[in-house]
């Protein structure tokens, strides 16, 4: 899996990347990364995306009427009459 000079090609290195990254190995210490600017840039980008992912997607409020639907479904499962309402939630996080 090396070229004539004994070095791993970019394609060979990148084929190993999912396992390298996924196994928690420090892919940045790989000899190929030390000598290849393109693969170093790729690895940096992938790690940047993974880091950024942890801050994605704000917490959002569900629609107000969702509880009514849940309440109705629970009553239906319980065999309760339609007017046997569950309490509307009053405390919100």
């Amino acid at each position: 899996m090396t070229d004539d000079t004994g070095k791993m090609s970019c394609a060979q290195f990148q084929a190993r990347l999912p396992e390298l990254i996924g196994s928690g190995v420090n892919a940045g210490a790989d000899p190929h990364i030390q000598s290849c600017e393109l693969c170093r840039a790729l690895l940096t980008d992938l790690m940047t995306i993974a880091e950024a992912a942890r801050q994605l997607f704000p917490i959002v409020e569900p629609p107000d009427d969702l509880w009514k639907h849940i309440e109705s479904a629970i009553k239906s499962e319980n065999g309760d009459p339609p007017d046997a309402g569950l309490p509307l939630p009053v405390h919100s996080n």
Partner: protein
Amino acid sequence: MPNSRIPTHPPDGSPPDLDEAAPFPAPDAKRVKFVPSASPDPAEADALARAQAGDHHAFAQLYSLHKRRIYSLCLRMVGNIAEAEDLTQEAFLQLHRKISTFRGDSAFSTWLHRLTINVVLMQLRKKGLSLISLDEAMEPVPEEGPGRSFGAPDLALSGTIDRLALERAVADLPAGYRLIFILHDVEGYEHNEIASMLECSIGNSKSQLHKARLRLRDALRANSQKEAQP
């Protein structure tokens, strides 16, 4: 766009501050999934005990305490508001059915989080979306070979990422890629856990996550190029 760029490398080397409303803050720079607090909210503990005993008022209180986290989780996983509402409803119905089986081996929030993920996965399987997209995602695609992802240094994502652009790119991922990316990179599950949840191999989980990140990189670079155009 203000406040939409994510500082990925804080100057002091500390982990970036998360929105205080974030559901599962990572306590260190390493990807860590939500770890339950050692001292759970007394109000929640009380509501939980009463809800397990059949108190509907207490169940309503639990809904209020967790609705935002559960709805947001569903929304992240499916990327569709109407589906997220349906799945949130189904998650709380499942909770209502199963709440008496909660034994406190983990934090309630962790248990409910996992229950919700299972509800979402079950729904996706019912619709055939997950299995199809997972299979598709596992098929080698010639144009997605390693060489395609070479990055010219001048196009490398440097330092910050546009949060909104990344969220849009995640939403545009095929369902199988999005699932793995959300479960691993956003929710913090390990590959062995994801493999178990999705009934695929650990290698497939790693491979799909890698492909998802490559697609996101391509999307972000395309977005950057578009923004750079006059």
